[in-house]
């Protein structure tokens, strides 16, 4: 009997793969075909590398968002958080130059600051949500405004620029490649694997899912709901910190426009990937595909001048809707009872 159970298991695993994973994957493949047809340079090594590197930012943040959303929360503050972390990192590193020079130590200090700020900001979001009993939407809308205005304040409305000495030391973190892949892509891969394991293979991930499914059931099942929820925001903060660490060496600057709308992009990546916005079901693999899809759309639009620039937003909107629709449609499944 347990035998037959296993076969059914693997079958239904396959079929669940069909609809939930293949959806975004198909969308991505279609996009790539379109890109290639528009311009064969789309599949050039250089472009693929650019694409992956760009996806790394949004992807890493979206992996954090997957936890928050799976546990039934939402974080609108990530873009602003990235901006303020980048700003403070730059200020700290610039002022450390005099004492510590422009070596690796200063860069590490900057990274340390980033992680501390990310964790702290995430914790603040989590604390206000759980202990303050304020809706996550409101808390993070508030902190979004706060972080954004803080970075504007630090930058005096303009741009904070990294000292040119440190920039030289820090540069490789964005521009170097190992085994053919740029460092940000490696970080993305690492965070993805860590995120996948955490969500699918640890008690913590199970708890996130349970809380997103039903907070009261989770509470009756000995889960420390507030603590786990706070942790999801901390993880989100940590992911933002990582994304920022690889973002800063790219242009060496932060301003009040850094990270604008990243929150919507990250949430969109998560949901395109099949995670349910109301919580209880999260997919890291889907999130990664979602981030790739979003970046690819932007990339393709830069590869053609067939459409008016002004209509980029229209194309983007249409493709996002279609990508999700591809995934929701019950491919080949007979119409099932509505639930």
């Amino acid at each position, binding site marked *: 009997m347990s035998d037959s159970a296993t076969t059914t298991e693997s079958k239904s695993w396959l079929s669940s793969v069909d609809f939930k994973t293949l959806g975004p994957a198909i969308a991505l493949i279609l996009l790539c075909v379109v890109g290639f047809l528009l311009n064969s*340079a789309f599949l050039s090594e250089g472009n693929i590398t*650019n694409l992956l590197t760009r996806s790394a930012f949004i992807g890493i943040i979206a992996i954090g968002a997957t936890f928050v959303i799976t546990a039934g929360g939402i974080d609108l503050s990530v873009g602003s958080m990235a901006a303020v972390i980048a700003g403070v990192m730059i200020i700290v590193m610039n002022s450390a130059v005099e004492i510590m020079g422009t070596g690796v130590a200063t860069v590490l200090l900057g990274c340390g600051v980033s992680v501390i700020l990310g964790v702290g900001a995430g914790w603040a979001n989590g604390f206000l949500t759980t202990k303050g009993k304020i809706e996550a939407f409101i808390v993070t809308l508030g902190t979004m405004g706060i972080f954004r205005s803080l970075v504007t304040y630090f930058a*005096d*409305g303009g*741009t904070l620029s990294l000292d040119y000495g440190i920039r030289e030391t820090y540069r490789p973190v964005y521009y170097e490649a190992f085994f053919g892949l740029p460092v940000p892509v490696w970080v993305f891969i690492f965070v993805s694997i860590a995120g996948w394991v955490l969500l699918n293979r640890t008690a913590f991930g199970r708890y996130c899912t349970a809380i997103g499914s039903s907070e009261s059931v989770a509470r009756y099942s000995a889960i420390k709901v507030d603590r786990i929820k706070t942790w999801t925001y901390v993880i989100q903060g940590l992911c933002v910190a990582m994304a920022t660490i690889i973002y800063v060496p*790219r242009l060496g600057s932060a301003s009040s426009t850094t990270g604008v709308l990243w929150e919507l992009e990250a949430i969109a990546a998560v949901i395109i990937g099949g995670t349910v916005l109301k919580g209880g079901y999260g997919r890291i693999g889907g999130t990664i595909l979602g981030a790739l899809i979003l970046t690819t759309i932007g990339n393709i639009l*830069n590869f053609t001048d067939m459409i008016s620039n002004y209509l980029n937003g229209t194309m983007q909107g249409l493709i996002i809707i279609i990508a999700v629709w591809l995934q929701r449609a019950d491919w080949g499944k007979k119409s099932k009872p509505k639930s």
Partner: protein
Amino acid sequence: QDQIKIGVSYPTPTHAWAAGMNWHAEQAEARLEALYPDVDLILVNSPDPGAQASAIEDLVSVHQIDALVVLPFESEPLTDPVLNVKKTGALITVVDRGLSLPGIEDIYVAGNNPELGRVSAQYMKTRLKEGDNIVVLRGIPTIIDNERFDAFMAEMEGSGVNILDHKHANWNRDDGFEVMQDFLSRFPDIDAVWAQDDDIAIGVVAALKQAGRDGDGMFVVGGAGMKETIKGIMDGETLVPVDVLYPPAMIATAMDVTVAAFKSNGPVSGRYILGATLITPENAASFYFPDSPF
């Protein structure tokens, strides 16, 4: 009335140019208030046109201003609100972007957007020959961007230089970087880039260096007059050899003139159009303000 109240309204700085303008405005406020104890300048910034209209209403209803210095977010939506201020009898100074009805402002102080495009194109033509290829990175879709772009295209007309494509990079470094990366993947042969703005140019330069395509006489023309860019020009940088001025200090000029309207005996009404000077290694030193944030 003992105090002369002057409201100064402009968009919230969200990029370096605006931050420079904000800095100049604050400098001017401190300087003028120290100079004239009976003058009170009230600086307000707003994140969008609607908010700016509201802020202007508040300046009138709360502070009962005697004069308004306004750098409109956009011309159209602010025309009516400023007209309402005008009706209260206040002196109106408009900066940078003209209102869409003539005759509202008493004083007009502005940079010159079409001139910026034209000057950039004229420089391009001196460096490029027929059959050369350039790409254009534009700002945020707005009238300013259109004016600059249209004038640039008009000037380039008939030069034989190919404009491969133009995309919006939103006066933003990140967007400049990504759009340029994609242009580089897409076009194997690019001879020059018009980035229109110094922030975009920074992203473009980073992308060029990453792709190793910053040699062979490649050059980038930005605009506005960022101090780092000017410093580079003074140091003989070849990748960004020139810049086109669009000075953020125009707000200070406007404030000075407005205060002068109350304090000076001579007539001050009229139009003050600042030029879009081409900054080259020869004249760069005179545009370099190391203390400004921009």
